[in-house]
């Protein structure tokens, strides 16, 4: 930690939950459903630096960005700007603060009022804060337009008359008008094509140099983040799973999720054989996020139970079966398609098969899996989850056998209750705190806990992770 100065922006335990309760009746019966879009995020932004925030869509990036500036009211937590808590400010005080904290939007066109000319868009912050009037205002507007690389003669044009890149420049000029310290950029280049992206990114970094700005830079494109950021935070389902200096995040050790994201960066080499880590399934619903580590449902490096003697990958396969059984409502989704050559391979390990069809592909019509014999059915289930004919561990094999029996009788619930206690990962039980793995580099994964046995690849159950939830 380089405690050189007080950070410009410090976010502590920021939570933003949405109430998605459907209506009056639901409210009456207390069936409230809270979307935990941002669920406990901490970060610091130092002067003149860029903090990149990456994550797949739906993980709460935009909500985080807006909560930081209180464009959405955070549910809990604090945002300190120069030591003062923004969440405690009155709305009038907050309005004054907006001269220091600005926002650049993802979609440049929709963030510009179609009825205002470019000059009015850029001049509005000046009017709102009374920064300039009359000819001084016009002069400042022209100056701002030129600062972002637009022709000052365009001041009378309407937003739709600009190209996407120019619209985004206009959005940046608007943010610059109040001479802010911090600009939160919410995917500022995602809506632009590649060549324009680099122009806008360069503009942002030029402005950073010129005005000493600090950026919170939200993106889903890791290459963009790598290019612009001094530090990177990786977000998954409302939480940061890893954060640290850009180089450190892009080099091992990784959080398994970061690793998967990094492997997805396209490589222009046609002969490149590097295998992307394919994450199965979708991001779980933030209404009811998974217990323990939120990534455990999709994690290719799930930590096996310490009491199990199974090899790690086999263990993970059975755990995947247990999890699927707990959520499935139809046995067919637990079996392989008859005769399918390509199967979804278990991912994350070096021995992966290429190709792969949807894991939920239905069996051939007419011959449902439960109509097959018990042996065939067991085979189908094992095939779907890439399990060996018999598990190397006798106890485990027995449990699995019983579970498959239950599935064969169409008792999914029974199978789930059989499997679940036997194949529960420590990742499901413990919510990993952030472990310091390097200078200023933290990873929230049990693999970096002291209790994690690197050799065996297991987590020592006795050792409670510090600060586990």
């Amino acid at each position, binding site marked *: 930690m380089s405690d050189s100065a007080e950070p410009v922006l410090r976010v502590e335990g920021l939570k933003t939950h949405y109430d998605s309760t459907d209506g009056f009746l639901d409210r009456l019966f207390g069936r409230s459903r809270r979307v935990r879009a941002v669920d406990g995020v901490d970060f610091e932004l130092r002067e003149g630096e860029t903090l990149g925030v990456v994550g797949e869509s739906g993980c709460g990036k935009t909500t985080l960005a*807006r909560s930081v*500036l209180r*464009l959405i009211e955070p549910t809990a937590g604090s945002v300190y700007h120069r030591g003062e808590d923004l969440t405690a400010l009155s709305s009038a005080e*907050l*309005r*004054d*603060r*907006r*001269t220091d904290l*600005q*926002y650049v*939007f*993802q*979609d440049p066109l*929709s*963030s*510009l*009022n*179609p*009825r205002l*000319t470019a000059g009015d868009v850029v001049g*509005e*912050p000046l009017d*709102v*804060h009374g920064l300039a009037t009359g000819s001084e205002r016009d002069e400042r507007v022209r100056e701002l337009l030129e600062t972002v690389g637009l*022709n000052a*003669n*365009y001041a*009378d*044009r*309407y937003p*739709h*008359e600009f*190209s996407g890149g*120019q619209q985004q420049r206009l*959005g940046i000029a*608007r*943010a610059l*008008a*109040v001479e802010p310290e911090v600009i939160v950029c919410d995917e500022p280049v995602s809506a632009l094509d*590649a*060549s324009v992206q*680099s*122009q806008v*990114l*360069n503009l942002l970094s030029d402005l950073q140099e010129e005005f000493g700005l600090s950026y919170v830079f939200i993106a889903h494109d890791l290459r963009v983040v790598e290019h612009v950021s001094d530090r990177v935070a990786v977000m998954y389902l409302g939480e940061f799973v890893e954060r640290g200096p850009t180089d450190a995040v892009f080099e091992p050790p990784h959080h398994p999720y970061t690793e998967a994201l990094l492997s997805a*960066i396209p*490589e*222009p*080499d046609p*002969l*490149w*054989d*590097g*295998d992307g880590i394919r994450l199965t399934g979708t991001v779980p619903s933030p209404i009811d996020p998974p217990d323990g580590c939120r990534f455990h449902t999709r994690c290719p490096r799930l930590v096996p139970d310490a009491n199990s003697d199974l090899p790690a990958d086999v263990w993970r396969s059975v755990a995947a079966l247990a999890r699927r059984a707990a959520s499935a409502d139809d046995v067919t989704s637990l079996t392989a398609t008859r005769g399918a050559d390509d199967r979804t391979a278990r991912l994350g390990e070096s021995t992966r098969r290429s190709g792969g069809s949807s894991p939920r592909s239905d069996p051939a019509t007419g011959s449902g899996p439960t109509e097959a014999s018990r042996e065939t059915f067991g085979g189908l289930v094992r095939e779907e989850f890439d399990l060996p004919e018999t598990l190397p561990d006798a106890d485990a094999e027995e449990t699995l056998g019983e579970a498959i029996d239950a599935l064969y009788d169409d008792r999914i619930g029974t199978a789930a209750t059989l499997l679940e206690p036997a194949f529960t990962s420590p990742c499901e039980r413990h919510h990993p705190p952030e472990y310091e793995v390097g200078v200023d580099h933290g990873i929230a994964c049990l693999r970096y806990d002291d209790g994690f046995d690197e050799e065996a690849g297991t987590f020592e159950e006795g050792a409670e992770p510090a600060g586990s939830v």
Partner: protein
Amino acid sequence: MTDDDDPGTDTADDDGTRSRARSRTDERGRIRITGFEADRVRDRDSLSEWGDEAAGGTNGGTAAGMDGRWRRGLRRFGRNRSAMTALAVVVSMALVSLLARPVEVLGVVVQPFALAPYDPTTILYLSVDPSVSPYDPPSWRFPMGVDGSGRDLFSRVLVGGRYSISIGFVVVGLTASFGLAYGAIAGYYGGVVDEVMMRIVDVVFAFPGLVLALVVVATLGGGYWQLVIAFSLFGWAGYARLVRGEVLSIAEREYVVAAKAIGARDRAVIRRHVAPNALSPLVVLASLNVGSVVIGVAALGFLGLGMDPGTAEWGTMLDATRETLIQGPGGRIPWWATVYPGGAIFVFVLAMNVIGDGINDALDARAAGVREGKRRREADRGGDES
């Protein structure tokens, strides 16, 4: 454009062996793409047409760029012949009724013209010409005939426009402005505010409008301002609901968030960003509603509840000659007593509706953009060449 980091594999000349010679790898970064560096792209951009266009060439473009949706709408409206005809009809009707008889304010004549030959309340056979009898048919002297009380219908129809037309515009002006403010506040703040405000609107909607107006007029008595109150008191609900719906979607737009992000007050956000963008459907509804208010006023008049019975208001005039619709004295039907005032209502309402449709078409943003843009580009090109 591509740069091979591994020089050993780059030597073979024949492409066939070369691709085989290069082994498959899972190392990243063997091929690097150049030429897409930002600096280069930026340099290239400065040479693009946008740069060229910058200084002189955009004079035409800037002038054209000045006009917003409203001015563009105005031009489209101007090209819409039926709407322009209707506008001419409405304007001339309004003018004629204004100029029909002199207007005095506090004893001072502010409008000296008199297009109507007689005062609308003059009973002709008493003061002008004893030979005139009630229900005289149209003649050169009385172009629209004489009504049941012996008054000149032509004069009455001309002057009657003053009441009907002005009530229409006054009521719509009042209700639309109130509805805009009400709906914008409800839609912008949402939540409980919205819930309460919209339930009030629902209550207003629960009564049939004309019956409510009838009750109000029956309570307050007839008269001009009573009619305005009767129609305004409940007429705003439709605007409020329309604007609220519009504002709900506008309030979610990013430019509203952007306005909040730069620190604008709610009031300024509503005034500058929300309300103007909700205005065009409101204008359309308002222009269509002028007609229905006029009809409503006429309907109350026909029921004998509008203006005082003798007033030269179109609906009231219809009421006064109601019995002649079936059969007049002497077995003949004096059609002129009902056709002319009824026709005036019909023409005015029709014209207002055509105008409303015209405005609707003119402000339709989807139809607006492309053709205009193309036209303007062509104009620009012409300007550049000259």
